[in-house]
């Protein structure tokens, strides 16, 4: 057993930490306020090699492990959770299924573009009538010989509108549905019949665009089927197992960012002629925040390490995701409390962290779904 980071992992942490401070932090509040995605920041992330951390070098990646990847998401989210989720979706939700299920040609075309960051990726599973229960999916794909025709729509698509490559799921056999009737496709934004629908107005992660995507007789070439015909549900679920590690890392970063800010503020804010940090009530809040963050970090790194070692990680990633996201919500709420009235204003960043934290309990499987996944593992033998 050894809980120390490797030199590579320490190096990437330093690289991303510096990048986040210098390139992301200066505009974070403004982009939140304006609900503005920054292609410039994305391109800079691509430039320093963050878009393909765990993918092999032959596909344009950095050839590093999943721990290095979750560290990158954590460090970005420590400053700006919107930028953190952009990378998480790019890697875990768009890149991963192509890496795991794609043909060699798909990997050379699409995974490489995602890893090098020349293209932005997204993932389309959720529909108005099917969130957690993907079995209620209505988007259809009909076989037309040399191509497929997709009809339907997907909602809550992170990176929607700015993405070039979408991994989407559609019903190919209405009789079978989740038991072999759903298929995954790689859809380019330029395909005929693809369009971007309404953009969501959200409580948080506002500089990460979330949109509807619409398929209206959308033509998808035969070779863009991802994985086997009918394996889509499996592709979707396995992708989410790993995606949970990314969101756990995002939540972890949000929580750590809120603790960093709370420590700074508690040291300098004076009341009753002494810094807040002298009061035990504040000290105990800080201690609990730090302890829970440490536990969340260990759970998250463990899940990512298991994935890197090709060991089972579904239960571990569900535990990491539910734990880290609840810690993020609690820690950010306490941070606003420590800042008092100032914490409630947009002059200070902690209210943004609290708004951003909430989504980590909801997307890529709600906390309730994570508990279902965990309980299934616990009770299965």
């Amino acid at each position, binding site marked *: 057993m050894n809980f120390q980071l490797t030199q590579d992992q320490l190096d990437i942490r330093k690289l991303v930490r510096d990048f986040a401070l210098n390139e992301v932090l200066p505009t974070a509040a403004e982009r939140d306020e304006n609900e503005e995605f920054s292609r410039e920041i994305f391109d800079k992330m691509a430039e320093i090699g963050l878009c393909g951390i765990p993918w092999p070098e032959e596909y344009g990646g950095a050839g590093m492990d999943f721990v290095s990847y979750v560290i990158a998401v954590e460090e970005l989210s420590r400053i700006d959770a919107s930028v953190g989720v952009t990378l998480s979706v790019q890697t875990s939700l768009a890149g991963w299924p192509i890496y795991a299920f794609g043909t060699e040609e798909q990997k050379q075309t699409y995974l490489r573009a995602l890893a090098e960051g020349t293209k932005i990726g997204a993932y389309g599973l959720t529909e108005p009538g099917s969130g957690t229960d993907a079995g209620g999916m209505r988007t259809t794909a009909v076989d037309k010989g040399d191509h497929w025709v997709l009809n339907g729509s997907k909602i809550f698509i992170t990176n929607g509108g700015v993405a070039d490559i979408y991994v989407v799921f559609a019903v190919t056999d209405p009789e079978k549905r989740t038991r072999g009737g759903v298929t995954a496709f790689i859809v380019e934004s330029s395909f005929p019949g693809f369009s971007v629908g309404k953009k969501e107005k959200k409580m948080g992660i506002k500089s990460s665009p979330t949109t509807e995507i619409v398929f209206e007789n959308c033509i998808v070439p035969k070779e863009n089927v991802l994985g086997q015909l009918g394996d889509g549900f499996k592709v979707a679920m396995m992708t989410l197992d790993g995606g949970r590690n990314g969101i756990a890392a995002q939540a972890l970063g949000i929580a750590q960012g809120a603790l960093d800010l709370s420590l700074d503020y508690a040291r300098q804010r004076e009341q009753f002629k002494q810094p807040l940090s002298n009061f035990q009530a504040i*000290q105990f809040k800080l201690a609990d925040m730090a*302890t829970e963050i440490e*536990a969340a970090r260990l759970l998250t790194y463990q899940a990512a390490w298991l994935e890197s070692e090709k060991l089972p990680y579904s239960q571990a990633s569900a535990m990491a995701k539910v734990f880290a996201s609840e810690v993020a919500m609690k820690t950010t709420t306490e941070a606003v409390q420590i800042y008092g009235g100032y914490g409630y204003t947009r002059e200070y960043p902690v209210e943004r962290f609290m708004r951003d934290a909430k989504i980590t309990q909801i997307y890529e499987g709600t906390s309730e779904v*994570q508990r*279902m996944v965990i309980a299934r593992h616990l009770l299965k033998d």
Partner: protein
Amino acid sequence: MDFLLTQDQRDMLQMVRDFAKNEIAPVAAEIDRTDEFPVALVKKMGGLGLLGIPIPEEYGGVGADYVSYTLTIEELSYASASVGVILAVHTSVGTMPILNFGTDAQKEKYVEKLATGELIGAFGLTEPSAGSDASSIRTRAVKQGDTYVLNGSKVFITNGEVADIFVVFAVTDPELGAKGVSAFIVERDTPGFSIGKKEHKMGMNGSGTVELVFDNAQVPTTQLLGQEGEGFKIAMSNLDGGRIGIGAQALGIARAAYDAARDYVKQRQQFGRPIADFQGVQFMLADMATKIEAARLLIYQAATMRQAGLPCSKQASMAKYYASDAAMSVTTDAVQLFGGYGYSKEYPVERFMRDAKVTQIYEGTNQIQRVVVAKNLLKG
């Protein structure tokens, strides 16, 4: 990074797990009910080497790593938290201070016998009015020729009922505060030293918790441990290790409660199906298991850091208080899942819940642990 145990650690774990299952689990309820210190069982553990896991082989120990020792406490506590704390106190604070600070003669005389279980060790620091604030102890030691005369009393001394030797702290120079405290190795038959009242406790029965009374106790100067004035340093020297040990104990208790609850909900039928089918029950189990996993990682992290000689006071305190809070919450939920049966002594979960409570209190209350963590956070 590597989240898996080494082969040696897995072997040790298997050995301890088998012993706990065969020798301890069958008598755990009885130890709790009778509140009798399990002397024969502890001697047997000594014979197997369990009492000297981190002690070097030259002193009769096993010479295993600190993680293995932590795993041992966890596994023993899974079967009986009382046996877990008996071992932890005997080794961490009854033996290690002598190994680390004793003269050659003291080490010769005591360490091997402690490591093999010929002697049982205890530790006397806490007093009626000196708990978390250990520097305010009042027991006095006055040097008279080749003897220190000790007066005062110590309370809440685990193993004290049967222990043969006691590592005891007394003030040798009241002017110097914490720097005026010295440590002594006190043998049970020391004139003027006696065992006072036995505590009747909520849980952790059978661990022999007593008061120690010093009434002009005659302790030879050869029994001074370390230098005069080094007592507080000695008392605090294994603080991190002790806290990790109690974290491991809490983890063992929590795991036992979780396993019992999981087995129970699978067979208990209500409304025509096992209660494990109900989501309200499933979510409780999921939360229990997740907290246990978080506690385990915090404890193993602190133990590996300590093993590697890295500073780990923050991590040890985090592990201790998180694991013991988790143990309290998990055992309480286990009683809840058992319903009325859980409240009955027919089932073990009420014992787990009673045993869990003290892990939030001893070896530094969880409030003290938070003070330690906060100090570490704010000093940077």
